[in-house]
């Protein structure tokens, strides 16, 4: 792969693109890492309710003075939004498992072409635990994966079949990388958008999976805003 974007640009491009997926009123849980950045790119006229699995509904931005009594799942303080509320963990996961979340955005180690997700465990390494991830991907109506297209060593992360231990089977609906956007419907992956730096051939080369190509295949949304900024 000749093309390589800076880590900063990669992260923000993915977050910006995912932010376009939401509709007014959506209840969304953002995982740690790139997903956290998504909240920075929500259009002003779209009101998203951010849920954190430790019990906040309506989590807002970081406060000026940190208060550890209001923290997100990553441990970072936030301000509760007007009309927000706090619930205990059983109800929090009831909302998650019961289909009351419109979407969850999470990172991935691997995603398979039929929507299997591996994002919690690398065999041989110390296992930190799955936390709320397994519940989130099983329960949220829409699972959106935010991930670099390949590993740092250039290995495909979008694969025919996951080799790493699964978080869940057949749950992923959308994959957004710095170079492409794929949907997965009924076990069938489709390339929807492609970044300006790459060709369809490039995508094929760095994706170890079968996918169809949308017609028309459009340029990845949001990248033009990026150019404007810089």
């Amino acid at each position: 792969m000749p093309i390589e974007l800076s880590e900063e640009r990669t992260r923000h491009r993915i977050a910006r693109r995912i932010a376009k997926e939401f509709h007014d009123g959506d209840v969304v849980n953002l995982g740690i890492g790139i997903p956290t950045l998504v909240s920075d790119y929500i259009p002003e006229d779209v009101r998203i309710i951010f849920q954190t699995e430790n019990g906040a509904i309506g989590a807002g931005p970081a406060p000026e003075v940190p208060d550890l009594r209001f923290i997100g799942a990553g441990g970072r303080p936030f301000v509760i939004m007007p009309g927000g509320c706090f619930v205990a963990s059983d109800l929090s996961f009831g909302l998650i498992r019961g289909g009351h979340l419109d979407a969850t955005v999470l990172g991935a180690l691997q995603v398979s072409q039929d929507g299997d997700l591996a994002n919690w465990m690398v065999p041989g390494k110390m296992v930190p635990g799955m936390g709320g991830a397994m519940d989130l991907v099983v329960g949220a109506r829409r699972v959106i994966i935010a991930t670099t297209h390949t590993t740092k060593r250039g290995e495909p992360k979008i694969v025919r079949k996951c080799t790493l231990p699964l978080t869940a089977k057949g749950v992923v609906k959308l994959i957004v990388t710095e170079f492409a956007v794929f949907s997965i419907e009924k076990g069938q992956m489709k390339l929807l958008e492609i970044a300006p730096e790459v060709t369809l051939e490039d995508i094929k080369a760095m994706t170890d999976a079968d996918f169809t190509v949308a017609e028309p295949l459009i340029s990845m949304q949001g990248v033009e805003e990026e150019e404007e900024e810089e």
Partner: protein
Amino acid sequence: MAKKVIKPVVSAAEAAKYVRPGMSIMIGGFNYGGIPYTLVEALVEAGTGDLTLISNDTAYEDVGHGKLVAKGQVKKVIASHVGLNKKTGQFFMEGKLELVLYPQGTFVECIRAAGFGLGGVLTPTGVGTVVEEGKQVIKINGQDYLLDLPLRADVAFIRAYKADRMGNLTYFGTNRNFNPIMATAADYVVAEVDSVVPIGELDPNEVVTPGILIDALVVKGDNYYANRT
């Protein structure tokens, strides 16, 4: 798909239109307490029939959703106790009404299972009784448990105390009962409340039902019981 952030405050008559013939409807309440009287009255007036009613009890024949039964709008009742409404028993005996009875703790847990995305409930309640009939018995650590399945509805009419425009709810006294649980287990949830307060007025620590579960709000009317509960 997402519910509205700012919940519409509608009339009871308007809310009753969400209930169409043949639908299943959960109605909160225990005996006189916590029934969404104004909503129920509107549904009685609308005359919508062929309903499956999921409610702890069927109240009294001239009170609350007891009237739905008495007026013949209900084809099936799923409840824990129906002894106070003579019409429920009468229609059941005459074969005009299907009746499924649950132990009350199982009933609420089955509703919660539906709302919380669980596959069912494993309860010791009812083991060795007629309640066991037709149910899977699962032995865990040497003890028998009945497997009861989730209970979901198309619409839920619930009763709360205060709401803000984002649909967050608090409850009052024994009116609480099944209402917070039913709010999790229906496709469309309407809450009847004493008052709708501005966003930010409810303490986020005191909210019992998060607004993300609610579709619409109705302010209680001057129905005899609505005024007293």
